[in-house]
């Protein structure tokens, strides 16, 4: 498809488990962003990649969260030892360039529920 693709769309896991969320950005978009959205709130920035490197990971809440983008396209957000407070929708977005007007193209998100 032409848009940002995220899998899985829904993930239910148990506290303490490991989770991976995948993002396939729009072809040719060099910048990729991960945001987290809790119920009733706006998205919160987690990390952004320019190419393969994490240019800014200041939004990652703690060291249980990690993201990679090894070939500069698909990205995986990894959460270790999940906690109930990690439950949220994880949104991925991409843009053609980093120099920012603020126009991001978002996927539909991966809804994570930690029981």
């Amino acid at each position, binding site marked *: 498809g032409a848009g*940002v693709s995220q899998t899985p769309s829904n993930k239910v896991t148990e506290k303490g488990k490991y989770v991976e969320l995948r993002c396939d950005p729009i072809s040719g978009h060099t*910048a990729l*962003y991960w945001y987290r959205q809790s*119920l*009733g*709130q*706006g*998205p*919160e*920035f987690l990390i*952004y990649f*320019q190419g393969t490197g994490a*240019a*800014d990971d200041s939004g990652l809440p703690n060291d249980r969260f990690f993201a990679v983008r090894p070939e500069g396209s698909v990205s995986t957000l990894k959460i270790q030892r999940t906690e109930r407070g990690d439950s949220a929708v994880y*949104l991925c*977005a991409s*843009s053609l360039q*980093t*120099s*920012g*007007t*603020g*126009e*991001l*193209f*978002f*996927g*539909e*998100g991966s809804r994570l529920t930690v029981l």
Partner: protein
Amino acid sequence: GESVGLHLPTLSVQEGDNSIINCAYSNSASDYFIWYKQESGKGPQFIIDIRSNMDKRQGQRVTVLLNKTVKHLSLQIAATQPGDSAVYFCAENLDGATNKLIFGTGTLLAVQP
């Protein structure tokens, strides 16, 4: 802005009326201000942006107004339609070199037929 948890501010309008959604931002140094629309179960969708050196910008049926004196941003939607029903977020781009956005608290727009 402050989180309002599950209780989003709501604006209810009649179909065909004009809608005005307001937002207060916090950082005077923001370079761009942006409005996003989010429908239920979907990701946010870019609507329009405005650079900090402007006070008004128009798009198709939408107008964004920026008042830097009082740090206020508004989105006006003309002739509101049922398809406009969604949560609307304002966002600031603090760093003009990236698209690292800070989103505000959303407003739920409910269009009554």
